[in-house]
C-alpha cells in the first residue's frame, strides 16, 4: 500500500465541515420534533375505534417501513417538482424525513401504549379524568416513558439517515463531504473526517436524549431505572 494520507489538504475546509454538521443537526432536530408528533397521532389512530382510521394508519406505517428511504426521498423530491411543486431542498428533506421517522415512531409508541394495563385507564375514568387527560397522563406519557430507549435508538438511526439527503444535493454533512472530496481529491481522508463527526453527533444525541429523559420522566429517575 503506497498511499500517503494527507489530512492537511482538508484543513482549509474545516468551516464547511462544521456548517455541514450544523445542517445535519438542524435536520435531525426538526425531523425528530415533527416525527414525534406524527408518530404519536398515528399510534392513536392505529388503536382507534374507527376501522377506516386504523387501516389508513396501518397502510402508511407498513408502506414506509417496507421501502427504502432513498426511494421515498426521490419519490417526494423529484415527484413534487415534476408536478410543478418546487420547494427548497432542506424543506423537501425534512418533509421526507418526517414521513419516514413518523412511521417508525408510531410503531414504537403503539407498542408502549399496548403495554399500558387496561385497569389503569379504567381507574382514571373512575377518578373522573377527561378523555384528553387520560390520553396525556395515563396513556401517552407513560407509553413514551416505557419505550424511551427504543425511541432514542430510532432517532439516532434517523440522524444517520439524514446523510441520504445529500442525494438530493442537500448541503448537510455528507453533501459537504462530497463537494470537498471532489475539490481536494482526498476522498478517503474526507470520509474518515466526516465519519468521526457523525460519531461525535451520535454521542451528542445520546447525551441529549439522556438529559431530556431525566427532565421529562422524573419518576423513572426516582425509581432508578434511568
Amino acid at each position, binding site marked *: *500500500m*503506497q*498511499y500517503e494520507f494527507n489530512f492537511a489538504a482538508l484543513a482549509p475546509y474545516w468551516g464547511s465541515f462544521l456548517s455541514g454538521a450544523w445542517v445535519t443537526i438542524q435536520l435531525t432536530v426538526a425531523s425528530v420534533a415533527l416525527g414525534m408528533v406524527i408518530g404519536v397521532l398515528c399510534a392513536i389512530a392505529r388503536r382507534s375505534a374507527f376501522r377506516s382510521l386504523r387501516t389508513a394508519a396501518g397502510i402508511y406505517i*407498513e*408502506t414506509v*417501513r*417496507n*421501502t*427504502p*428511504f*432513498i*426511494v*421515498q426521498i*426521490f*419519490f417526494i423530491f*423529484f*415527484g413534487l*417538482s*415534476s*408536478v410543478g411543486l418546487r420547494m427548497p431542498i432542506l424543506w423537501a428533506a425534512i418533509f421526507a424525513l418526517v414521513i419516514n421517522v413518523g412511521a417508525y415512531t408510531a410503531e414504537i409508541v403503539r407498542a408502549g401504549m399496548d403495554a399500558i394495563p387496561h385497569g389503569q385507564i379504567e381507574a382514571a375514568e373512575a377518578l373522573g379524568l377527561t378523555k384528553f387527560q387520560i390520553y396525556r397522563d395515563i396513556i401517552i406519557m407513560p407509553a413514551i416513558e416505557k419505550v424511551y430507549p427504543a425511541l432514542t435508538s430510532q432517532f439516532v438511526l434517523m440522524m*444517520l*439517515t439524514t*446523510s*441520504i439527503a*445529500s*442525494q438530493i444535493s442537500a448541503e448537510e454533512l*455528507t453533501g459537504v*463531504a462530497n463537494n470537498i*472530496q471532489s475539490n481536494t481529491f482526498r*476522498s*478517503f481522508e474526507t*470520509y*474518515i473526517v*466526516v*465519519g468521526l463527526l*457523525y*460519531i461525535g453527533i*451520535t*454521542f451528542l444525541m445520546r447525551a441529549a436524549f439522556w438529559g431530556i429523559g431525566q427532565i421529562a420522566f422524573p419518576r423513572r429517575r426516582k425509581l432508578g431505572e434511568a
Partner: protein
Amino acid sequence: MDGFGTGHLVYLLNGLLWTVVLSVLALLLGGIAGFGVMLARISQRRWLRRVSMGYVQIVQGTPLLIQMFLMYFGLGVAGVQVPALLAAALAMMIYSSAYLGEIWRGCVQSIGKTQFEAAETLALTRWQSLIDVILPQAARIATPPTVGFVVQLVKNTSLASVVGFLELTRSAQVINNSLFQPFLVFGIAAALYFAVCYPLSLWSRTLERKLNAGRRQA
C-alpha cells in the same frame, strides 16, 4: 416522449435481481462476521470485549452511506480496483456484522448465566457449552429479530446505488433520467421493494408471536 414500457419494467426487475443478490451476499458475509462480533462481545478476555465494543460503536455511529464511500474509495486508495458489487457487499458486511453481532449478543446473554454454570458443572468446555447448550436456545429467540434485520438489509442495499452499482434504485434513477416520470418510476421501485420486504416483515412478526405464545398471559 415514450411512456413507461415493458422494456423499462424488465430493466427494473433486473435491478431487483441484483438487489436480492446483494442482500444475500450481505447477509451471508455479515452473518459470519456478526457471529465473530458476537463471540468477541461475550468473550472472557476484556481487551477483546473492549475492541469489539469500539467496533460496534463506530459502525453504529456512522451512516452506511459513509461506509459505502469509505469502502469504495478506500479500496481504490489501496490500489485494488474492485467492482461496485464487491465494494458494496463489503460495506454491507461491515454494517450488518455490527448490528447482527449486537442482536445475537443480546439473545445469547438473555439465556441466563445459570445455563452456562450448569454446563460448566457438567465439565463441558466453554466451546462445548456454547455450541451444545447456549446457541440452540439462543437461535430460537434470535430468529424473529434477525428476520426483522434482513428487512433493513434489503432496504439498505438501495444505498449501493451511490457507488454506481446497478441495483433496483439505480435502475429506477436511470429510467427516471430519461422519462422524467418520478412518481411512476419510483412508485414502481417502491412497490417492488415492498413486495420483497413486506412478506419478510410479516414472517418476522409471526415468528415473534409464536415465540411469545408460551409467555403470554391469558
